[in-house]
């Protein structure tokens, strides 16, 4: 194949809708809003697992929170009919991720498991990806963060501690996926089974609102869950093809 043929073939592949579906796995998370109580266990789980820094009150006042998964809250109605709805928001691992196209150095890109990965070492900190991400789930390291000794002893050795000037965000706990794959390989299994990988947030969720798995495996829980009639994508109209599927909250009315 000469250069031009290769280019054309590559372009055709790139243009093919569902291109990412040819990859090995398609990791997906479902979030059942009818279960989620907004408790925040997932937030702390993610912080503990992923060495997310404690930024301190002053930084939070400036609006520089660092939580790869956050609980958004929306009020509806007025007293006495006020309602509060929670929605966990994390990187949606979009198959057509706007954050990826804008990164000038490809520090964020799609891997062969359909993850939107973030390569801290490569990032030069333009923050464009954070502007382009409509879900606003990218967090920037405005400083080198510090852990008061001996808090740093808790840090997860499987996860990098990010330095100032780089972007970070939910990785779908890629270190856990890697580890599960390693274990599977040790056991002589080619593919992971449903349930082999549990990201920290999913693992902790007390209401079991979160589910994680491979949507290519039609026997997986997440496959079933995402085909629930309540399934939808947040900001669907932007066509980012997210890998996070929300299940609508059920509102019953008193009869």
């Amino acid at each position, binding site marked *: 194949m000469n250069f031009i043929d290769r280019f054309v073939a590559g372009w055709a592949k790139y243009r093919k809708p569902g291109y990412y579906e040819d990859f090995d796995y398609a990791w997906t998370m479902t979030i059942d809003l009818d279960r989620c109580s907004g408790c925040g266990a997932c937030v702390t789980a993610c912080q503990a697992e992923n060495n997310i820094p404690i930024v301190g009150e002053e930084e939070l006042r400036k609006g*520089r929170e660092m939580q790869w998964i956050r609980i958004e809250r929306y009020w509806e109605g007025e007293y006495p009919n006020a309602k509060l709805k929670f929605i966990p928001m994390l990187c949606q691992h979009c198959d057509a991720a706007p954050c990826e196209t804008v990164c*000038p150095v490809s520090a964020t890109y799609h891997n062969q498991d359909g993850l939107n990965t973030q390569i801290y070492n490569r990032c030069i900190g*333009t923050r464009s990806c954070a*502007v382009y991400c409509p879900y606003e789930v990218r967090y920037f390291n405005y400083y080198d963060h510090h852990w008061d000794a001996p808090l740093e002893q808790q840090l997860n050795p499987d996860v990098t501690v990010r330095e100032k000037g780089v972007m970070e965000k939910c990785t779908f706990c890629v270190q856990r996926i890697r580890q599960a794959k390693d274990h599977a390989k040790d056991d002589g299994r080619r593919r992971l089974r449903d349930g082999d990988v549990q990201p920290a947030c999913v693992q902790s969720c007390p209401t079991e609102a979160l589910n994680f798995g491979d949507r290519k495996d039609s026997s997986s829980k997440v496959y079933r869950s995402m085909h629930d009639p309540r399934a939808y994508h947040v900001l669907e109209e932007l066509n980012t093809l997210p890998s996070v599927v929300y299940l609508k909250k059920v509102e019953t009315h008193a009869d």
Partner: protein
Amino acid sequence: MPTEEKPLQFADVNNDIVRSLVVTGRNYYITLGIAMFVALACFFFPWFYQLYYGIGAAGMNHPTVWGTYLASFIFWIGLSHSGTLLSCVLHITNSEWRKAMYRSAEAMTLFSLLVAATMVMVHVGRPWFIHWAAPYPNQMGLWPNFKSPLLFDVMAITTYLTGSLIFIYMGSIPDFAAVRDRTSGWRRHLYVLLSLGWRGTDTEWHRLGWAYTFLAVLIIPLAVSVHSIVSWDFAMSLVPGLHQTIFAPYFVVGAIYSGTAGIVTVMFVLRKYMNFEHLITQLHFDNLGKLLLFLSLLWTYINMLELFTGWYSGTSAEYEQIKYKLTGFYAPLYWEMILFCAVAPLLMFSTKFRTSFVPMLVLSIAINIGMYTERFLIIATTLSRQYLPDAWGVYVPSLVEISILVGSLAVFVTLFLIFVKIFPSVSIYEVKETMPQPRKREANLES
């Protein structure tokens, strides 16, 4: 300074300009000293502080990850227009009055671009790795992402910078030769090198003329494309208020608008402090005023379009953007911008206004303040109000940012001050072309 009514001689032009290069007064050194000091204290020191501690030294935060640095970047890129661009247009259209000012205009382009490039360095989180955005073979096998509008930007700016540099240099060669012939010592050595052995033969003039026009034609679309591409950094996102098809023309018009206003400012300064009263006249201000007026109307029209499309979209996200712009946290800045860039320029309908130097200076500065505000608002208002209301927030620039903004002006002024001592800031030969030919001399030659 009233001058006696003595016709201008060729020799006067040469001497004037060479004198401006060679004779340096105390005022110049004082100005340069102040500019360098401000650049150091307000630009480089805070920047190093920020490099050490991180971008946190600036005020940017979670929804608003971009701020004044990028606003400054667009501003300087904008200012860079109408320098070289204007010069090219006027060259092609054979505008007589271009000749007194185009060199400074082109210099503005050059230095604005340099400052803009520096603003990028100030903006990114890890400028020490900025070269990763350039395509160069490396053992890591890494390549930049050519799908990224930021990369288009890098390339467009580099190209524009290169083009502008060649253009200004080429146009200066005959003048370098003229200076070479009137100086001695290290200056002579310098201008021997810079003038590339120019002797002023017909062939040389012919080639220069041809190449110059060719470049001028080339640079016009380039300049337009640069700011279009800068606009894509924003327009290619999905952010409500940024994701707009009008953005490319909007940015180009804005750029030429602020660039032209910048030229007015610079010309006023040159005229006043470099004793160029006889070279830069009311006519120049009048013409530039007309151009500015036209641009301001165009700019206002596009701004109205932006509001209209937001309203017309009928979506909560776009609608909120407009509401926020007009009435939100940043609204005072918005109205300041409207006052400076849309309302005040209407004064230029009056010829008297256009031909008055000081009012034009004030207006041109106001326009650029307004245009800076515009760039700031494009970033700050949109990023503060995106799709998910729970993630909304506001951003206020920090002291470091404000200092760097002021300092960047000083950097620009410093560069410009150094430039006027090296380049003849008014084109010698082209000014002469516009003057009446000295008859007596012709007669003498006949005999």
